[in-house]
């Protein structure tokens, strides 16, 4: 009720000490379709559920390559995602030019976090409406980071963002301790199980709506790539073999999925501008 008077300006705190515009921006991230990230000692992977506006349309791209050693999955406003990922590419490229080394992943994520923070403090600017899961590898091994429009970034063993991501988080919390020693195929299988949790009733993962991003050495089913394993995206038929490896879902009726802030009665009515 009262929060409506404190939520139109970015630079106004509410009496509870909250910035409502930033929180609304986080809502935009929750509107996007789910993305899941997890890592082991050797690999870090991203899995994303792609949305399409209808049968005639293509599926919205959810993953971007930033550099050989960094890739991202997005949830939220795709246009904001393009701007921020372009900025990340410039930063990574600049580091290679100036220092002849791949940009340390934590510094790359900090650079967009600092950039996003500016938009939460300046009058007249709106926060970015997109969240990222960033995977990368550098001298200290593979990493997974989450970036959110509030300007916060954290490193995780496993994380998910987007619509119905809480269900995926529940799965990840149950299994994350086994991830460290998984091989690539098992890691992808865990990720697909987690992603499956975010689906609505009667939907399923298929080669059209699933994409997998990988950092780390070559897996069993991949065509030869040189170590240390640059970021690559698997889509379409390349994903089939991993989808086959999933275990059948239990038929026990799942409790009604966590009610979202916005109603979504059928898939086609999902918000169109976000991916």
């Amino acid at each position, binding site marked *: 009720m009262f929060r409506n008077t404190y939520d139109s300006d970015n630079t106004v705190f509410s009496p509870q000490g909250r910035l409502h515009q930033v929180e609304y921006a986080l809502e935009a991230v929750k509107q996007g379709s789910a993305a899941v990230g997890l890592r082991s000692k050797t690999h870090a992977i991203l899995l994303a559920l792609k949305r399409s506006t209808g049968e005639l349309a293509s599926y919205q791209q959810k993953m971007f390559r930033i550099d050989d050693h960094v890739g991202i999955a997005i949830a939220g406003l795709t246009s904001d995602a393009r701007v921020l990922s372009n900025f990340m590419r410039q930063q990574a490229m600049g580091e290679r*030019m*100036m*220092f*002849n*080394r791949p940009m*340390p992943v*934590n*510094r790359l994520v900090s650079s967009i976090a600092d950039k996003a923070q500016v938009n939460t403090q300046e009058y007249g600017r709106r926060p970015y409406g997109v969240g990222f899961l960033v995977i990368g590898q*550098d*001298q*200290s091994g593979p990493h997974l980071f989450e970036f959110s429009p509030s300007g916060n970034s954290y490193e995780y063993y496993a994380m998910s963002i987007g619509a119905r991501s809480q269900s995926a988080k529940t799965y990840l919390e149950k299994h994350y301790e086994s991830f460290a020693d998984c091989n690539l195929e098992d890691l992808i299988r865990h990720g697909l199980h987690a992603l499956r949790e975010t689906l609505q009733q009667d939907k399923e993962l298929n080669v059209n709506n699933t994409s997998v991003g990988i950092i780390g050495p070559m897996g069993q089913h991949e065509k030869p790539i040189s170590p240390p394993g640059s970021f690559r995206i698997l889509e379409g038929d390349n994903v089939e073999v991993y989808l086959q490896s999933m275990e059948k879902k239990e038929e026990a009726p799942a409790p009604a999925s966590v009610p979202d802030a916005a109603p979504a009665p059928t898939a086609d009515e999902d918000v169109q501008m976000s991916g």
Partner: protein
Amino acid sequence: MDHFPTNWGRPRNDAFDAYATYPIHQRPYNGPKDSFADGVQRTQQPIVTGTSVLAIKYKDGVMMAADNLASYGSLARFKDVQRLHQVGNYTVIGAGGDMSDFQYIQYILEELSIDEISAQDGHELGPVEIHEYMSQLMYARRSKMDPLWNSLLIGGFKDGKRFLSYVDLLGTTYSASTLATGYGAFIAQPLLRKAVEGREDVITEEEARKILEDSLRVLFYRDARSLNKFQIAAISSAGVSISDSMQLDTAWSFAENIRGYGAQTQ
């Protein structure tokens, strides 16, 4: 007739340039002037200079040597100058050429190191990164026609790998297991190559030191802008160590056999 009022009353030659077409007509400029920029001068020549720097790869790492002289033209002016500078925990940079530009380079690298240290995330600048940064910097300055008038050797040891490279005022870079700048490139390089090439993984620290000292001695005999007081830096898995200044022993007694030496008449 001449149509341009600004040419009336000015010298012109009706015979070949009736309309005063040359020099090209320009409106007088009365706008804001940047008198500071007008007075800026770019580096035209080095003033206080250092001479050769030598470096070789050896079994445990990289060794670099330079004398302690900064000359003011032909005057041996500053005789306790350190031309080898440590950057971070893995790199040494040695400079010949203009010493004030080298001091500026040291300042820049110090700032870089501070930023890297404050990140505190386990990443450190090694010789590869320093060399790339310096190459970009030197080339950018040369492209602005305002060079940092130096020839630099960058040597280091990180992650089990030796590194040795050269970059100069033109932005030229190269890498080898023996490098030398200035007069050293002509006089010392053949000596270093003979002693080192093919044996980089065999040469011990003592032998490496001797190789560099012998080359420095030859340079002191032959380079008229050198000094027999020098330092040697060794970079290995144990880190960076730059020695204190040492004296080179030399033998000048051969001079007495030269006709016309000293008070001799024949």
